[in-house]
């Protein structure tokens, strides 16, 4: 092949690649260069594909803005985000879990975005439930837009419930709604195997800490007292943990701790009921031969309640005017179209979106959404990682029968208070006592 023909071939390849990259679009572009936005998140599962679809739609509808999405595992996401953002190389738009917002905000790279909520085209702040919008409210500023809510609820095997007689007037599976019903279902759904041990369990703990944190809300449990001091061994928390431990005593209603059954056991029909977040529904959507039903947590404590978290959309500080405007436009788009996002296994944060018929058709999502008035977020604290680790440890010790709820929570409380004191001393130089 001669030089001329080689160059011709190269030119042809470049032309084809260029056309492919531009989606064969010959539409006239808006004046001025396109604004490039980088959007980072940890949506590595099927939810990431839904989010990618939304990003593509936004890019099509806004030819003057090009959003590039990058998703990475949550485990490394925050490290990369932190390092990049502190060096002003981070993404323009990023997702933070609500429980991490306080800590990340202190790092100083999260922008105030009050104007996203302002004006007719703004995201209406009053479209959020008070405890949801409060998650992104710091002082007099908003530092993010809640995209969704992920309440924890009860997943049940519908066939097992029906077989055990838990049905409503129409003959549909009816998950337990009270403590008595729950204990009865946990016991009835348990089937003994030929070796005399349960082959199928009525109920199993998934993430132990999440199960505890979901339950403590029903017993008026909390993490910090009004003075901001750690108070993990409060009566509500003790009652919730005592209830969890009781499932392991007498007639055992949960698999032994070393068994490892949990969500996987539920998927494999070896467990009748589990408590988990709405985000797990995406995992069930892929199963063809499994009939399940989602419902609010049964009222085991004094009243209804559950744990919740949110993904919040945030903007990096110190963006240029055009980038900042584009970022806010993108956030508004995602918020307005969050019903699409809900299909990936989330509950939209905005009430108006939850009121749409499209959302109401999502059975598990809409069932879990009923808990929003009673849900409780994790506390806003800068020691969130340490707090969660201590609760993890306390719950584990109790479930394994190595400690009482009071002793385990008191031990955890001592450590969390020490973390708070250290944090305060390091920040202010004052003695935390």
């Amino acid at each position, binding site marked *: 092949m001669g030089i001329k023909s080689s160059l011709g071939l190269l030119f042809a390849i470049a032309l084809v690649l260029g056309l492919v990259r531009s989606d064969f679009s010959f539409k006239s572009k808006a004046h001025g260069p396109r604004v490039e936005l980088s959007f980072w998140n940890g949506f590595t599962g099927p939810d990431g594909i839904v989010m990618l679809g939304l990003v593509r739609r936004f890019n099509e509808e806004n030819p003057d803005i090009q959003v590039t999405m990058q998703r990475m595992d949550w485990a490394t996401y925050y490290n990369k985000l*932190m390092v990049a953002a502190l060096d002003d190389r981070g993404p323009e738009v990023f997702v933070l879990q609500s429980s991490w917002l306080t800590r*990340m905000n202190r*790092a100083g790279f999260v922008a105030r975005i009050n104007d996203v909520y302002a004006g007719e085209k703004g995201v209406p702040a009053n479209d959020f439930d008070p405890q949801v919008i409060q998650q992104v409210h710091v002082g007099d500023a908003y530092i993010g837009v809640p995209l969704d809510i992920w309440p924890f609820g009860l997943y049940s095997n519908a066939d097992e419930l029906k077989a055990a007689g838990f049905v409503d007037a129409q003959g549909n599976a009816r998950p337990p709604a009270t403590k008595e019903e729950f204990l009865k279902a946990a016991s009835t759904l348990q089937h003994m195997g030929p070796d005399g041990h349960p082959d199928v369990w009525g109920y199993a703990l998934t993430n132990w800490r999440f199960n505890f944190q979901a339950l403590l809300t029903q017993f008026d449990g909390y993490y910090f007292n009004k003075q901001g001091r750690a108070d993990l061994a409060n009566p509500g928390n003790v009652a919730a943990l005592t209830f969890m431990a009781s499932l392991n005593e007498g007639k055992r209603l949960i698999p032994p701790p070393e068994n490892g059954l949990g969500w*996987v*056991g539920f998927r494999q029909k070896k467990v009748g009921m589990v408590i988990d977040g709405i985000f797990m529904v995406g995992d069930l959507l892929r199963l063809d031969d499994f009939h399940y039903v989602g419902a609010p947590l049964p009222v085991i404590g004094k009243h209804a309640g559950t744990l919740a978290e949110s993904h919040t959309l945030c903007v990096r500080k110190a963006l240029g005017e055009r980038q900042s405007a584009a970022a806010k436009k993108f956030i508004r788009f995602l918020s307005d179209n969050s019903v699409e996002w809900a299909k990936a296994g989330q509950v939209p944060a905005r009430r108006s979106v939850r009121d749409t018929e499209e959302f109401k058709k999502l059975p598990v999502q809409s069932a879990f959404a009923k808990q929003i008035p009673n849900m409780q977020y994790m506390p806003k604290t800068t020691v969130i990682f340490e707090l969660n680790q201590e609760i993890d*440890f306390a719950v*584990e010790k109790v479930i*394994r029968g190595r400690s009482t709820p009071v002793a385990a929570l008191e031990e955890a409380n001592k450590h969390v208070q020490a973390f708070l004191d250290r944090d305060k001393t390091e920040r202010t130089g004052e003695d935390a006592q």
Partner: protein
Amino acid sequence: MTYAKKRGLHGLLFLAPYALSFCVFVLIPIGVALVLSLMQFDLTAPHSIKFNAGKNYADAWKDEYFWQALKATLGYVVLMVPGLIVTSLGVALGLNGMAKGRNTIRAILFLPGMLNVAVTGLLWRWFYDGEFGLFNFVLKRLGMNPAPWLSDKGYAMPSIVMMSLWWTIGGTSIVLLAALQQIPKQIFEAALLDGSTGPALLSKITIPLLRPVLLFVVVTNTIAGFQVFGQPFLLTQGGPERSTRGLVQYIYETAFNNYRLGYGAAMSWMLFAIVAVFALLQYRVLRRSIA
């Protein structure tokens, strides 16, 4: 320029690429970590970053989680290093005695070592799974009770060691096999003619002549043992009840989950000091026995 100088210059030129990367990726980070260890350095609180002299070291000394993690690390080293040496030596002796198929077995043994720790961890997590795992499936088939491989404090660390052995035995065995093959056969023949038996051959000839290589294997594996991270992190995440959370995992959590880089760096230096002391002690003891 004299020939010797020219040769020296050429040598330096050949060394330069490695020396450069060693400086950039090893020496400078070590120096930075030393400086960080003397600072209060929390990435989430950039305004409070300051020098705090040796406070991080003093805090670590008083930190019960530091000692708990060190105990877990020591537990791993104590199980892993002798376990690895004994099994690798056994494998190497077996291979050395084989007339046929040695290369095939050697390749098979070496294969796990070529896998990434993440792949190995995922594979063994399935092996150990309480309900759906391979090992418990086999135990149940044999009419035995399933074992809580990773969920019981008594089992978890030995289970991690078992995986590590599977993963690393190939490399160590090959090193020992190479050393075994260097021992002149005439020594064994002479000993046999003098009426020596198998155990005597092992204790009086093989082990003494392997000592320099054993010294190398023990010291390097002890250093690696103190740095264990991937195996417990993937299999147990440090549980149950933090019984397998080693020092490197605690340092990782401190520096990269809590963003307390200064404190994490101080603990890294303390780990370095501990490893250095152990390695030097082993070196001295074994070196003396060689002499």
